[in-house]
């Protein structure tokens, strides 16, 4: 979902109406229906948060975005409270900050502190919150207990030791993917992310799309071989005709990562398993055809595009229109498929058109 649409609690686009609210003494205009957290972030006021994600419904479980709101009891969470005209919000204050700091300390006490060897180092949202709040060390007793790592998925692993149970992955699997492969299991102290029957990811209905990995704020869900690419190039996914906008991350001249482009109008940042994890393998596969081939008496011979296309044109000309069918490859974009059917209908004059982009 593009960042410019305010989801709000109602999920309705109410961009056209605004309300005036005050945050830390600063008066801002916020879209009606937005939450206090969305309004604050939109106005450049950062409130620490971990379980919030603009793609997902509010859950209110990390309790870091607690604020004081004039006329409301206690410390409501900014991510679950909708803005109301005239609302006065305070994001700081001794008691409030103390409680927020304690909640952060609780997370840190339950999280391995081997940041230097964590692939999420410096991109970790827990680190960001700790830096913002000036927390340098854990003050509480460690409550870390070793948990089972699920590395049965071919593309990513679920390292539960690092999980802060923010629920972003489970909400992603439910709300974005509609797959519901992962859920919170058990309760209390024993709560953990898992699949039906507490089995392994490999045995579940997980599609391996990796959306959960993208939404994990810490290093709990991570690709098997996490890489930070040297450069990223914006392009369109060539795995099927949907046309998802992606960034291909390249290191050492090879495609290492694929990332959905949140600005992409087709996919809003989302990708499927083929786009996210399949491209680098098939693009760089030694068996991949890199040039057209023409079959002669001795078998297939490499040729130039000009030769190949000329040959095809010549041969097509020998058939009547309805003797010809055009079936573009599944690896072509929607636009290319459109052009191909134009060629079939307008140039050749046949309706015998099909496409196998039903992956």
């Amino acid at each position: 979902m593009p960042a410019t649409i305010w989801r709000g609690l109602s999920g309705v686009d109410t961009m056209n109406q605004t309300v005036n609210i005050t945050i830390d003494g600063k008066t801002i205009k916020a879209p009606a229906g937005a939450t206090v957290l969305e309004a604050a972030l939109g106005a450049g006021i950062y409130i620490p948060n971990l379980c919030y994600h603009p793609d997902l419904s509010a859950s209110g479980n990390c309790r870091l975005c607690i604020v004081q709101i004039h006329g409301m009891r206690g410390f409501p969470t900014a991510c679950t409270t909708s803005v109301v005209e005239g609302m006065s919000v305070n994001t700081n204050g001794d008691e409030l900050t103390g409680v927020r700091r304690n909640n952060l300390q609780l997370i840190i006490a339950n999280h391995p502190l081997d940041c230097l060897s964590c692939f999420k180092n410096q991109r970790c949202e827990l680190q960001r919150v700790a830096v913002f709040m000036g927390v340098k060390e854990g003050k509480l007793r460690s409550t870390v207990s070793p948990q089972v790592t699920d590395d049965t998925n071919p593309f990513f692993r679920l390292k539960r030791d690092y999980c802060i149970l923010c629920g972003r992955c489970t909400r992603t699997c439910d709300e974005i993917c509609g797959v519901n492969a992962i859920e919170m299991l058990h309760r209390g102290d024993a709560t953990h992310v898992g699949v039906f029957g507490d089995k392994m990811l490999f045995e579940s209905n997980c599609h391996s799309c990796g959306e959960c990995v993208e939404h994990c704020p810490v290093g709990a869900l991570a690709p098997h071989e996490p890489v930070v690419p040297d450069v990223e190039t914006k392009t369109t996914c060539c795995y099927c005709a949907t046309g998802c906008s992606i960034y291909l991350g390249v290191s050492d001249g090879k495609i290492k990562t694929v990332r959905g482009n949140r600005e992409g109008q087709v996919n809003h940042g989302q990708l499927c398993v083929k786009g996210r994890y399949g491209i680098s393998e098939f693009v760089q596969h030694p068996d991949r055809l890199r040039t057209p081939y023409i079959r002669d008496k001795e078998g297939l011979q490499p040729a130039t595009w000009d030769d190949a296309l000329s040959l095809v044109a010549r041969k097509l000309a020998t058939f009547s229109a309805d003797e010809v069918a055009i079936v573009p490859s599944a690896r072509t974009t929607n636009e290319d498929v459109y052009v191909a059917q134009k060629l079939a209908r307008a140039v050749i004059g046949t309706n015998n058109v099909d496409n196998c982009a039903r992956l």
Partner: protein
Amino acid sequence: MSLLKARFDAQVEWEAFNNPQKPQILIGRATCGEASGAKDVYQAVLDTISRLPIDADVHITGCLGTCYCEPLVDIIKPGMPRISYHSMIAEKVLPLLSDYLLNDNPRADWALGAWGQTCGDIPNLFDIPMLAQQKRIALRNIGVIDPQNFNHCLARGGYSGLERALGLTPDEVIDEIEKSGLRGRGGAGFPTGHKWRLCRNAKGDSKYIVCNADEGDPGAFMDRALLESDPHAVLEGILIGAYAIGANNGVIYIRAEYPLAIKRLTIAIEQLKNNGLLGEHILDTDFAFDLTIVQGAGAFVCGEGTAMIASIEGKRGTPRPRPPFSTESGLWGKPTNINNVETWACVSAIMAKGAQQFSSLGTGKSKGTKTFSLAGKIKRTGLIEVPMGISLQEIIFGIGGGIPNNKAFKAVQTGGPTGGCIPESKLLLPVDFEALIEAGSYMGSGGMVVLDEDNCMVEIARYFLSFTVAESCGKCIPCRLGTRQLLTILTEITQGNGNVSDFDTLYELGKSIRLSSLCGLGQGAPNPVLTTLAYFREEYESHIKEHRCQAGECRSLVSYTITAERCKGCGICLRQCPVSAIKGEKGHSHVIDSAKCTSCGNCLEVCPPRFGAVCRV
């Protein structure tokens, strides 16, 4: 279908039951009775009357609330008042029935009391200390009627409240409930009438009623006893509520661990259907209502309203942030009114007898009566109902009879695992919603666990925390990780590994958890720690600074020795030691091998008091 004729028939049956031609025998068969052997007693009664020349009818009844002397057997002999016999075992059945029914000896030595009058040496049941100060509204029929006999319920005025309500407009019904001052009995104490009005005024084509019977506090059994002993009091309240808010569907959410309550509710719902009290055109009006039972799978947190709704909908039972409140968007997204079992039983009584009678009892903001389950170190455990405002002292020492074995009272834990421990200095506290909150605890659903000098308050706090750690839904950080942290610290303190900075950590963290948890479970979870810290700080200090547990409950901090001069070498402790840590020849003083000893304290228990050779250090 009107209840006029059915009620008349029922009254004739009830009259004949209480003034019978032949003896009527009732066995209290709620779960508390069953647990103490009522099933065997019931069988023994059947066997005995088949063998002796006794022609008697045998019935079951519910729990009278006197759990300390279960199982109870009541006998109504022609021309005599109903007499209750306590602590019945199968072996006592034959002598009792033959002495009383064949030989006119009412066995005053086994009698608890006679109903409504003294009878020779047998006191009036309602004058015995356990019952004298009680005022029964919600519990009006428990232990009195056969819970499976619809006529008993009708004869005792059942569904007259509903008849009255259906003659009023829904708004008038809500007015009446508001006038009574009834507040939710599930713990939070939200004004019931106000909640109903919010739900009635909420927009929605269909609305739901939910009865919260997910009673889960350790030591609480009010709802179970009520549902097992008088399910119709609750069902009538639900029907009245449904009419008032305009709901056509209702759900009773009850924990699956209450099979007997579920069975009796199921029977009662069947009886309603057969008498035109469920379905279309209830009592010839346009009011239609249907009711289903949903069984909870044993999660404590599902007693929280939003978690319960999630559970009924088949989702994971976790609370969600409010607003929206259930009265606007509850079950299946429809306006939903949730009330607790006891609240519903009060509703039916209020509609039957009028708001005035209810509101004349209680304190300024807490009207009527409240049920409590007395458990722990108290002589008379059981289920009681008292007017709000009564002091804890009167409950514990008057009704409950004080502490057994000449031990000293230390504290009373109210409100379950999210409540607090109230010390002796606050015993005169009037029991109402506000006063208990001021003391750092809260009313909760009515569990009351009494603690004596042998209870270590640090250990008590640790115990309740271990409950919340396991029963937190695991969703929000302060509840899941905060209670874990508190439990870790408390465990270390009880093992003698605490340090002085723990006071501040416990206090600060406790406050944080209370202020920032998502639902009531987390917000209340630190209460056992915060109240024991406030009222029993010296116990924490002796654990941390002196590595000593005064109560002797923390095993890591106590050891046992045998004083050689006092030990006569009787060998009792040697035989009772579960880990064979005691050595010694018969007739010579024994010694405890501290390496083997697990500090269980058995030796101290069994050493004859006249020797007093084992001591705890």
